[in-house]
């Protein structure tokens, strides 16, 4: 088994993105921690090797944009362009960020509890 190759050496970033440093204007904004996953049942035929690698990586896996960039060994900006293109073609979907921890009681709930307490008196 050969060690992982440094692809970046030969195929330059501008060829991977077609010279783009930012996604199309209409594309959803992906920040570092936006979670992406592969849409089920989409064929990867016709995709570039980097796009295919992103889809393979995200099959059955939810990863943050920054993790995808690291795993694909691509710069973050390049990864963003790559992922936005795949979102546009329907190969990927964005997921909601993980559910937040149980929040402390909100004010309304506190007031409701006080009300219930008073009524019980």
């Amino acid at each position: 088994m050969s060690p992982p190759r440094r692809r970046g050496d030969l195929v330059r970033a501008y060829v991977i993105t077609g010279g783009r440093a930012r996604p199309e204007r209409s594309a959803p904004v992906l920040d570092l921690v936006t979670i992406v996953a592969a849409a089920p049942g989409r064929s990867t035929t016709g995709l570039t090797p980097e796009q295919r690698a992103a889809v393979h990586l995200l099959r059955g896996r939810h990863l943050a944009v920054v993790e995808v960039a690291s795993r694909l060994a691509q710069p973050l900006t390049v990864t963003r362009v790559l992922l936005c293109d795949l979102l546009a073609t329907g190969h990927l979907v964005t997921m909601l960020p993980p559910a937040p921890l149980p929040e402390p009681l909100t004010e309304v709930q506190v007031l409701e509890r006080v009300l219930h307490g008073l009524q019980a008196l």
Partner: protein
Amino acid sequence: MPDTAEILRLLGESALVCAVAALVIRLRGVRRAHRKESSAARSRTRALESELARHRAEVLPEAVAGAHRRAAQAAQGLPRSVARTVQGLAHGQQKKITEMLNRHDDPDVVEGLLVLDHHSAQMLRRAAGLAVVCGSWPGRQHDATPLIDVVRGAVSRIQDYRRVRTVPPADDRAVTGRVVEGLVLALAELLENATRYSHPDTRVQVHTRPVPDGLALVVEDAGIGLDQAERRRVEQILAPDGPVPDLTRVGDPPQGGLAVCALLARRYGFTVHVDDGSAFGGVRAVVGLPGALLTTPVTAGDTTLAPPAPRRHDAGGPR
């Protein structure tokens, strides 16, 4: 009794006859000698002529070729060393740009870096091409590389890279590491020619085709093709048994790209053929890769997946 005067007259006459006879005999001798001499001269001339012909056929071309070799060697020293220096600088620049691309997240900065990277890649190609024509070989080492990345590596090094459409090869074999850089360089020269000599609105297509021993990389453009004189010149440069292209044979205006292809093809054992057979009406360039230059794929599917690289993205965002 004849008188004395008569005797003298007769004597005079016979002396005259004798003299004439002697003269005739002498003349004959002279003529014979002359004939002998001139035939000797003729054979000497013939010998000289054949000697001269031998010189013209053997010695002279050898001397001319020797002088040509010496002149070419003397002429290519400086450009070769300049080419090497430029290659080194462009390499350093590319390394720095890659580093910066991995560190910066601002699209404006990255946009500029992509342009700089593209310029460096073209500088590298031109310098590497000049070094090859000056008799040195590409030094860059690569692992065995999938065909599609060899093609896109070549696309990375030309000016009009957006116009090239790469049909993903069905063949999943890789190109052996030793050949990768030479093949990328040759293919880049063919792509540069294809994009340069066709309308900017048209596409240039690269696809692979299986051939009996190995496979062929085909570059097709929609340009105006080659006229007869151009085709002859191209065939001459690319002829595997023709004169080795060097700095003095690239012509003016220089046909450097094809000379680079011809030299790299000889060196690494692939073939380059250029004709008018493009499916889009222009020039078709075919690079023939024998099976010996191909190897099993590196690993299918997820070759691009590197282990997580902690040095890369700083969660802290742009700096």
